[in-house]
């Protein structure tokens, strides 16, 4: 929310010219009859998606040449707002000339992209993306009817973002590979959540089974657990920098035991580890001298250098030792 959001802006002004033109004059509006198809030896497929009571409904007609599975003609009827009519028209247009198998690959984004005036500017504002672009669902249904298979068979994976058709598998993989930490990053990398935004978190335009916030949290949690397990497996012998705090303290103690502590004890002193703080450049180890070491002249010079040099050599070059 800032200056540009103060006046909501006109919904209709955000439609592309193509949307406006097709709304006013849809090219593929109409019906294909059984008689027409019979005359040409073609197959008629008619599929509905949505209903008047849902607020949007589209009926898709395909005239398919059974010899090649090619959609030779496609028309639509639609109960819906302007963008629903325009997107249904574009959907029918995109179907014409494709085989049924190719048509199943048409996504809602393909329809939206085809309605853009310029490649960078969305054809409809985000909140209209959801309610008016229903291409994929009705195409899938029509293809299922033609091929005599369950439409669910086209879904080999769970789709989290319907607008951009991004699957759960893709999202999990991209978050992991790129070490993504925020929803904005997820949207930048995958386009998921960039359109109607319903899949980002509960409470959007449409209730979803999966939400990006949950997926991100789950994957991050898994990654953290894996990281901890890897550290645990490596124990105090693994890479010092990736160790957990407890492991680091154990490793430091072990290193000090091995080479420094005996000399301190001989002089009537000792040292204890107070804290370990990680920063990108350093690992700061806070120590406290005990007994005779406390206040001893070399505790801030020679002894300190010896401890730091030992730990640097044995554990990590990023170590700094700081007495308190």
């Amino acid at each position, binding site marked *: 929310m800032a200056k540009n959001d103060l006046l909501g802006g006109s919904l209709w002004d955000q439609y592309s010219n193509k949307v406006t033109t097709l709304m006013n004059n849809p090219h593929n509006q109409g019906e294909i009859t059984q008689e027409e198809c019979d005359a040409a030896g073609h197959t008629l497929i008619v599929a*509905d998606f*949505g209903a008047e*009571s849902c*607020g949007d*409904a589209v009926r898709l007609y395909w005239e398919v040449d059974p010899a090649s599975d090619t959609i030779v003609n496609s028309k639509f*009827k639609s*109960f819906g*707002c302007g963008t629903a009519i325009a997107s249904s028209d574009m959907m029918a247009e995109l179907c014409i000339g494709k085989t049924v198998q190719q048509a199943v690959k048409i996504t809602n984004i393909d329809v939206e992209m085809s309605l853009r005036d310029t490649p960078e500017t969305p054809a409809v504002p985000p909140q209209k993306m959801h309610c008016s672009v229903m291409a994929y669902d009705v195409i899938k249904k029509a293809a*299922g009817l033609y091929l005599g298979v369950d439409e669910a068979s086209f879904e080999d994976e769970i789709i989290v973002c319907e607008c951009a058709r991004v699957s759960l598998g893709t999202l999990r993989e991209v978050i992991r590979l790129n070490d993504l930490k925020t929803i904005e990053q997820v949207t930048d990398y995958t386009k998921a959540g960039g359109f109607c935004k319903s899949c980002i978190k509960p409470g959007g335009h*449409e209730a979803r089974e999966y939400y990006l916030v949950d997926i991100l949290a789950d994957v991050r949690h898994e990654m953290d657990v894996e990281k901890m397990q890897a550290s645990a497996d490596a124990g105090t012998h693994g890479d010092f920098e990736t160790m957990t705090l407890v492991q680091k303290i154990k490793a430091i103690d072990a290193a000090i035991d091995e080479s420094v502590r005996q000399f301190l004890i001989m002089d009537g002193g000792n040292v204890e580890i107070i804290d370990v703080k990680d920063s990108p450049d350093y690992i700061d180890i806070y120590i406290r001298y005990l007994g005779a070491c406390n206040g001893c002249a070399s505790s801030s010079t020679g002894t300190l250098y010896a401890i730091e040099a030992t730990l640097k050599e044995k554990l990590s070059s990023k170590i700094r030792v700081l007495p308190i």
Partner: protein
Amino acid sequence: MQVYLDNNATTMVDPAVTEAMIPYFSEIYGNPNSLHKFGTASHPAITKAINQMYKGIGASDKDDIIFTSCATEANNWVLKSVWIDKILHSDKNHIVTTEIEHPSVLSTCRFLEDQGVKVTYLPVNDQGIVEAHTVKAFITEKTALVSIMWANNETGMIFPIKEIGEICREKGVLFHTDGVQAVGKIPVNMEEVHVDFMSMSAHKFHGPKGIGALYIKNSQHLTPLLHGGEHMGGRRSGTLNVPYIVGMGQALEMATTNMEEKISMIAAKRNRLEDALLGALEDVMVVGDRANRTPNTILISIRGVEGEGMLWDLNNALIGASTGSACASESLEANTVMLAIGADNELAHTGIRLSLSRFTTDEEIDYVIERFESAVKRLRAISSSYAIVQPTAGGATLACHIHH
């Protein structure tokens, strides 16, 4: 020709109102609270506006009418201050309202729920109104306030304010009514009803935007929403908006002078439009009995034609109307009034509201009848609801996949 039929959203400022306001911008601009003559020069005009307001709604001299920035402020004021006065500082904890109030009431009630107040949202009947006995049934000894609109913005349906007021008086519960859609449209006489608080807005009756008022019966206590320089007797601080106060008074006087005559003129045009549409089009319905509706409003549902699509075609014909269609709203939530009426889900997506004003002409009505019919014809030709070829076996929609 262009026709504005969205007068329940806002109205044109009557040029006579603008004219009355003009001197109070650059000629008589003093602060009415100042002691010098620049300040006091505005007093006669403010006094006149106050008198116009009291006369316009039949308020008694013992009552207060406090000018506010808008009706949203007035609604917020009543709800939040009753919460402070009667709920935070007493043992009451309950507010009764309806499902179809204006967002300035509903959102404030939801805010108060977050603060721990119990709110009952009464349902409406198939006429789109809440019946008095329903209100009675939900008032408990914990109820601090009943807030129910006088007339609804979407349907124009008029609520039984007199009966509800009597019930609240019997039960000893404060009664607030959002009078925004009633004042200036239908006779409103505070002497004849028992109402503790009533919100009003000037721009719904050909006054300017940015000015409203709250009627307070018997000048009773209500903690201020805006504290400050003790304007309007300390009830609502903020330098008096002199030109807009003048405009509101003038607009209310004009709306309520010879009101019966004005009502019958608007109703005649509205009825002609409604009859023409109902006569010419199949599968259409209008919500609510005419006799109990504000005289300027039609809410018509057109089967097979989605509301925003219809609005688009009307806009292409230079006709401004309104829809409660889910698709047209930012939130995509189905229209609360339509859903509350419960007639059918379809209604929530196919309703078009036409709201006239005293400036609507017969020529405009003729034009709208013609263009409305052609828009319905075009959209029904595209509509799947009117398609002839039926889906391939297995291709019909079994359930609504879209969750609005």
